[in-house]
């Protein structure tokens, strides 16, 4: 890809990353809600539900980070293998 194409690609990727971020955000809300909230006798979050949601977000972000690191390593490994073939 030449310089121009590179720039175009970068622009498209940036747009996509924004979309990606919104998707991750909404998935986070959905999954933590579904795991943590089960009490509908009140219209405000119980303190245990609220605590669960905070822990859920923290944990999921930590997990995402870890998997992201492994993914990068594995991807790099695979690319190196393919190039040496």
């Amino acid at each position, binding site marked *: *890809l030449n310089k121009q*194409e590179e720039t175009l*690609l970068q622009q498209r990727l940036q747009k*996509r990353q924004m979309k990606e971020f919104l998707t991750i955000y909404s998935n986070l809300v959905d999954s933590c809600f579904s795991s943590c909230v089960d009490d509908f006798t009140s219209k405000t979050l119980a303190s245990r539900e609220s605590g669960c949601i905070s822990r859920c977000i923290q944990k*999921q972000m930590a*997990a995402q980070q870890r*998997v992201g690191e*492994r*993914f990068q390593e594995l991807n790099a490994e*695979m690319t190196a293998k393919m190039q040496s073939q």
Partner: protein
Amino acid sequence: MSFLGFGRPKLSSEEKVAMAEQELRMLASMHNRMTKMCQTKCIPDYREGELNKGESVCLDRCSAKYFESHQKVSDIMQAESQKRGPAQGGAMF
């Protein structure tokens, strides 16, 4: 991502960028699915806000296995489509 080498046709600039974008999208998609899958498999509850040792190691192993599974499926599908012969126009993965 390789092209079974029947000689590369000249691609327009737009096509090249689109292809590169497509490839990166596939990688991003795989990343997302891997994250989701491994979280489901490795994280049973949210009693703690941090990953414990067992969960961390599970995530590492899950990532490696997912990657390997992806490779395996891709290899087998390619072999299958080659068996069927180029006339069948195998699907691109």
